[in-house]
């Protein structure tokens, strides 16, 4: 089995920004909307290259969503990106009605996903966005695992998909480990390591941590299968059922509230199709706080060692 290595740290937001730029180079209908944090969400790559196709909307996220809808209804392909706390929560009603109910092709970026945002603290750490976005009809939800995948997924979301799409990404530099042998296929889960004891279903930055956990457990003769789920909606039911049926237990790992998010989506699939021992790792119904990203990840049990420990616990109970 492939050994996954970090090719160098890079923020997923840069992957998103590069993806928007690449998509716009080959698709002249792409337009961008910024709400004063254009550089922070890496929309500046696009804005600098195509200033005439970029609309500055000021600190007014609700209006920006409606404007994006109007641009889409007029044949443009708008990319609207801001922090996930705004694009999914402040704008929930606008996204629901002006984008989803109208089923227009708008790519909504959700930046600063998860606790790894760090020192900015709870107000800026998007921890409920998956839960909101995945319940909206027509909305598709993508959560890439590294900068490489973020770029691929963003290009695909803009130029290949139709209707509303939410692309989630983070702030911090994280390991970049994907490559051309594992291309982004929308709606398809990716098995990154094989194992028959336990499955880690992971999304976003947590996939790297799940890989670290599987390495730790390998030394203890525990086989952990890591399945990266970059498309949370529509979710790859077949892959989830298959992995769950071939291992003894399941852990879901996300940088998000455990309620209503990615782990809940996996649990829904398994409860209805393949009842399985399952634990969810994520934020336990609590707000985040300030701190260094790594400190916070450790405090809330989101690093590889924590995941490995949870796996030992659940497996020991099954003995």
């Amino acid at each position, binding site marked *: 089995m492939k050994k996954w290595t970090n090719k160098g740290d890079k923020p997923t937001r840069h992957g998103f920004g590069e993806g928007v730029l690449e998509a716009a180079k080959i698709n002249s209908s792409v337009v961008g909307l910024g709400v004063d944090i254009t550089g922070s969400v890496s929309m500046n790559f696009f804005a600098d290259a195509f200033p005439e196709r970029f609309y500055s909307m000021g600190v007014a996220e609700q*209006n920006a969503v*409606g404007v994006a*809808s*109007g*641009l889409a209804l007029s044949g443009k392909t708008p990319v609207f990106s801001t922090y996930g706390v705004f694009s999914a929560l402040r704008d929930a009603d*606008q996204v629901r009605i002006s984008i989803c109910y*109208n089923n227009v092709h708008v790519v909504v970026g959700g930046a600063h996903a998860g606790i790894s945002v760090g020192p900015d603290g709870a107000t800026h750490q998007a921890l409920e966005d998956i839960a909101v976005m995945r319940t909206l009809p027509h909305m598709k939800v993508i959560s890439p695992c590294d900068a490489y995948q973020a770029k691929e997924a963003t290009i695909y979301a803009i130029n290949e998909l139709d209707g509303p799409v939410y692309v989630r990404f983070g702030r911090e530099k994280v390991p970049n480990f994907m490559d051309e042998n594992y291309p982004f296929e929308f709606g398809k889960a990716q098995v990154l390591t094989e194992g028959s004891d336990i499955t880690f279903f992971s999304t976003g930055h947590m996939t790297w941590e799940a890989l670290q956990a599987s390495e730790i457990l390998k030394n203890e003769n525990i086989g952990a299968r890591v399945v990266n789920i970059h498309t949370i909606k529509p979710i790859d039911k077949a892959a989830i059922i298959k992995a769950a049926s071939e291992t003894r237990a399941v852990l879901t790992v996300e940088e998000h509230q455990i309620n209503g998010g990615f782990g809940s989506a996996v649990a829904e699939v398994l409860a209805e199709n393949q009842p399985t021992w399952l634990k969810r790792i994520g934020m336990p119904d609590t707000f985040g706080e300030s701190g260094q990203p790594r400190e916070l990840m450790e405090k809330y049990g989101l690093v590889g060692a924590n995941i490995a420990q949870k796996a030992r616990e659940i497996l020991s109970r099954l003995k």
Partner: protein
Amino acid sequence: MVTFSKIEQLKSVATEIRVNTLKSLAEAGSGHTGGSLGLADIFTALYFYVLNHDPKNPKWEDRDRLVLSIGHVAPVFYATLAEAGYFDKSELMTLRKLGSRLQGHPGREHGLPGIELSAGSLGQGLSVAVGMALAAKADKKQHRIFCVNGDGELQEGSVWEAIMSAGHYQLDNLISIVDRNRVQIDGPTSEVMGLEPLKEKFESFGWEVMECEGNNMEHILRTFALATKTLAKPTVILAETTMGKGVAEIEGDYRWHGKPPKKDQLESFINQVKNAAS
């Protein structure tokens, strides 16, 4: 110059639209009568005089766009679209019923031709209209974007974000019509949440402001003619309308915002509309 006979013809169209609005509401058994009747003259002017549109080709690329932000006045919108030929008038009687293309608030996915935007959650339509106006500018198109807003709706903060952005981008291809009937569900707007000085508010956001007697056809047409001449800024028409216009016994009564005529009231209401027109 609009001729006398054209104005008379438009008035009779407005009467027909009011009658069909009332019929569909009575049949539906729920829906918004007050604002629908108040806007019948504006909608008539838009679809029978102002808008550059083609009911037989609703997706025509160069059409003027009418964005209905206050989706709850769907009954008069539908009656107008049917009168203009977008679909058969008999379909008006399916309003709000299961399986109907005439949803309680307009929904594009149900397939009714002529709907530019699914809307009904207040405070969103003007933003979409701004996006359409920006796209038209980017593509060097000559068509205009019209947006129908309510006065109570202006209490939504997001509308002022949209107003700010339209001023910023100097969107002279955008015209908002505010249904200034001075009432909303809970009562007079001045009591629920005061809006004045409204003219000055819009002006300070970079808009051209026109005031208009919103139930006076001649005045409506004259105002639209002026509004389409504004350069380098968006225009708002503050249309002073009367809620329930045409049915004497409910005119100006905010309690008629959100209820339909009962079936046994329908004949009397229609007669009042016809008498008001003659």
